[in-house]
């Protein structure tokens, strides 16, 4: 992940949202769904969520915790923190440029 958003097709956004969700503490799948629905107003579906989650785990960005009552919580790994920071700063640049150009457009 070199600063850009994940290149995982339809799983890219889900992966980003999962990282943001896990930055607020370890969660299992259903809790992630509820959390993402609350802060991003977006309902991830089970297949998409696990498609993104398997990729994140495979690349060591999230870590599985011991299962509790058949549900397994996940937490952000050290590499995941780095990846999330890189993504956020690249988004910062895009947001800043967008705002700047809109302001310049309205001024002229």
């Amino acid at each position, binding site marked *: 992940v070199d600063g850009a958003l994940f290149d995982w097709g339809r799983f890219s956004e889900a992966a980003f949202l999962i990282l943001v969700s896990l930055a607020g503490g370890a969660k299992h*799948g*259903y809790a992630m769904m509820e959390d993402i629905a609350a802060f991003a107003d977006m309902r991830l*579906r089970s297949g998409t*969520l696990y498609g993104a989650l*398997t990729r994140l785990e495979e690349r060591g960005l999230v870590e599985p915790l011991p299962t509790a009552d058949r549900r397994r919580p996940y937490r952000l790994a050290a590499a995941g923190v780095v990846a999330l920071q890189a993504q956020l700063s690249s988004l910062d640049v895009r947001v800043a440029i967008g705002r700047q150009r809109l302001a310049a457009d309205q001024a002229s």
Partner: protein
Amino acid sequence: MSPTSLRGALRLFAIRTLLRLYPRAWRRRYGVEFVALVTQRPLSPLEVADVVRGAVDARRVASRTMTSRRVPVCSASSIANSAAPTAVLERWRNGWTGRRRDMTGKQQRFRCSFCGKRRDQVRRLIAGPGVYICDECVALCNRVIADGEHPHSCQQPEGARPAVQRQAAPWWQGWQHLVRRWLETRRTGHLQMTVRQLIAGAASSST
């Protein structure tokens, strides 16, 4: 039986069926937590479609990363699944996008239709009209037939049972017998588990 428990059993059956679309290795790692997650959500058509798409994706990933194929084993259940769909099933289990590495040209034709072994993997392969069977599967069939030879009621002499008694038997007698035999022959699948739950529910509500 109450309609809610029937619906619950069917729902669980549907979810387990959906899970079977995923590759074996994936199910082993994520199966339990995934089922726990899906059972918590309403199973809308969009949700089902998303899970199916997830399964297709997991298979694509698996066929890219996995190198070894599962060797087909000669078993009673592979015989029960019959000849024709075996190749398709095998292909689906191992991922559609994977190249057929060990099934090329003519070799592919000379395979046991029951266990899938090639001609050079068995001692003898016997050809039938469009099907093949290996010596191991013939031996297994003989064992299965020998096991299944029970003294059947149809061997009783005519008129041994009065006609009145036969009429008194409930209409589903034959059906129940068939289901029980089926449950005894293949007891690992989740459809069997669902049917057993339904039967247990019916029995408990009738008493």
